[in-house]
């Protein structure tokens, strides 16, 4: 009788453990049931390359043109809405040459009074609220045997003090402090296989509430970085393909999408507690596979993840929390 009771107790504990470990994992966002946010734009004007969460709570975005003779569109979507509305410009700073160029990153500081970008040959540049340009310094390097082939990072991130970070030459992190106008190369490198440091640029990044940064590199590595301590840890490479297209934090998980630009985007989850990956697979909106790469990703204040795809028939999708 005692043995039976002990066996039952062990069984119950096992089942309970399974419930708290396995069940929550299956409830995390894994991009298999995206909802479409309707876009009124014609084919060829729908390649979404930028999404911004403004202080008014709305999401603003840029879709570039893939046909000659069209400039692209600027749009706004209110959280919870199922359609975008066209607007004439982004609120505040407006530099069309930067915003519509999918080959360079463009991010705002927290107050939306400064815009930061990298030029196609890897120079860090800023624009103030009046659109006045300031060249800050060279960040990117070139790839081996490509004297004009600058390996330019796709994005930036900020620390809690408002300092700007990106990856540059040979995979080193660069930090720009707006308060002192100081640009410096840190002694921190993005992860890469030895020999591929020149390709170790920043493809995607997300900052958690406690200031810890999760990022993805051009070669598809995921890392965690603490700006205060300067420690960077390589968490691994969930996909065989290169490129990390989108990252977002959802509860205990880092949700990501990766894949080559001409490849097939695939999702993954990183358990932030165990640091184990779950490979999610293809991305779906209803029954339809999403086959074009993600051009932009943003989370609204409610934790919903917005994804914009590129190409002739680019779309805006939302993965609700």
């Amino acid at each position, binding site marked *: 009788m005692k043995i039976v009771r002990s066996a039952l107790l062990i069984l119950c504990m096992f089942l309970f453990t399974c419930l708290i470990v396995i069940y929550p994992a299956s409830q995390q966002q894994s991009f298999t049931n995206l909802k479409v946010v309707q876009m*009124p734009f014609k084919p060829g004007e729908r390649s979404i390359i930028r999404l911004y969460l403004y202080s008014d709570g709305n999401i603003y975005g840029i879709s570039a043109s*893939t046909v000659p003779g069209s400039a692209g569109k600027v749009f706004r979507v209110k959280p919870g809405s199922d359609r975008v509305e066209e607007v004439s410009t982004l609120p505040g700073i407006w530099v069309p040459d930067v915003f519509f160029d999918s080959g360079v990153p463009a991010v705002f500081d927290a107050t939306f009074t400064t815009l930061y970008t990298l030029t196609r040959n890897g120079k860090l540049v800023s624009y103030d609220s009046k659109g006045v340009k300031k060249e800050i310094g060279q960040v990117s390097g070139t790839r081996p045997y490509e004297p004009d082939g600058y390996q330019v990072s796709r994005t930036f991130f900020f620390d809690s003090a408002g300092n700007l970070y990106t990856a540059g030459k040979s995979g080193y992190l660069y930090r720009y402090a707006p308060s002192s106008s100081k640009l410096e190369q840190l002694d921190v490198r993005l992860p890469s296989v030895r020999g591929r440091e020149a390709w170790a640029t920043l493809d995607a990044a997300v900052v958690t509430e406690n200031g810890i940064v999760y990022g993805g590199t051009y070669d598809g590595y995921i890392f965690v970085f603490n700006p205060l301590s300067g420690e960077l840890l390589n968490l691994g490479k969930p*996909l065989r393909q290169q490129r990390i297209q989108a990252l977002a934090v959802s509860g205990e998980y880092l949700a990501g999408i990766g894949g080559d630009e001409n*490849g*097939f985007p*695939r999702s993954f989850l990183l358990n932030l507690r165990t640091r184990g990956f779950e490979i999610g*697979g293809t991305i779906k909106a209803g029954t339809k596979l999403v086959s*074009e790469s993600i051009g932009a990703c943003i989370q609204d204040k409610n934790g919903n993840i917005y994804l914009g795809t590129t190409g002739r028939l680019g779309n805006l999708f939302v993965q609700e929390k």
Partner: protein
Amino acid sequence: MAGIKRKLCFLLFFATAGCFLLFAEQNEKILEGEMFPIPESTHNGSGYTAIACGNDGNIYVGTAFYGSSAHLVCFNPKRKTWTDLIDAHKVTRENGAGLDSQSKFHAKILVDADGVIWAATKQGNEDFENRPEFGESATGYPGGHLFSYNPRTREVRDHGILRKQEGIMGGSIDRVRKRLYYWSDPKQHFLAYDITTGTLKDYGEIGGSPRYTAIDRKGRVFGTGRQGIIWMYDPSDDRLYDLQVTLEGPGKYADPYAIALSDDGNKIFGCAINGEYVMEFDLSTIAIRTDIPGADGTIVCRNRARSIPEPLQPGDQHSGVLGTDGCFYFPNTIGDKCYMIRYDPRRPEKVENLGVIKVKGHPELKPLYVQGMCTLPDGTIYMKFISYGKLMPYSIMKFARLSRTR
């Protein structure tokens, strides 16, 4: 006694009903065709849209050989012999297995004015949901090859992979501009291949997987895109347009599965899987407009005749072809019968059911699933039937002069 009488009445009723049904079935029209099985060494039971009548009167067929190498074979109707023209792996020198193999000729076989045959491969046995052969596999599918075969010189050429890791589908030819048009699977990009220069242009996503595309006299190419959209490529301004369909006529709009250009070049006929009506897309109604959200313009589709006369209910309509008489011929498979249907645009109120398709000399076989059709200049129609679990050998069937001008 009353109980016995009641039982006798029931028995009589059911016997009468059974005889009636049997009589009705026996009186159903039959359309017999001659069957020519495709050589077994070149396939494993199926093959799809890839069939065309060459300028030389031969029938060119692309097969599917899952996990292995697809073939382009040629049927000589006079000698009733088959020739194996292209073994995809032998020509490309690839040896991919499973999903990584060149295991299907699916794209429509295209015939140039000089008689040169164009064919293209894709991956087979697709895992449509996960696409493991694309991106994550260490081996992976290389991409579909474009081939040409010259019947006069018997030269086979491999023109290379059109899009890395993607198969090739669709197929239309512009014999004036010397261009081939396809779309890539799975990313659904519209592709134009210039025969003269050997160069490819990628126009981006079309949003759909049209089994068939149609090309009109102006060189404009049409196919189904997103739901309710017909895309159009216009060579005059080298652009893709998405046209929202405006429906006229009874019933609801269904995206067509098989389409064919009409004789006069002004319409495109279409039929849909389980589609209730034969459709006509009126090319004269194409309007490029700026006020259509998410699209570039509109096109009118008219639901015409019911796709099969009542009391039968519409079934699987997987293929279609224009006959030499200007009629649209398509199969309608309902239950265990495949009917040949003729739609005459001059009498659009009603289709003609030409009968249940049967194999001449083989009443035990069940020709059910048509995957491709083509028409010879004398009006003979060839249909390609898959075996589908040994219903019949994977074959082409000949319907002699079925669509001759009457």
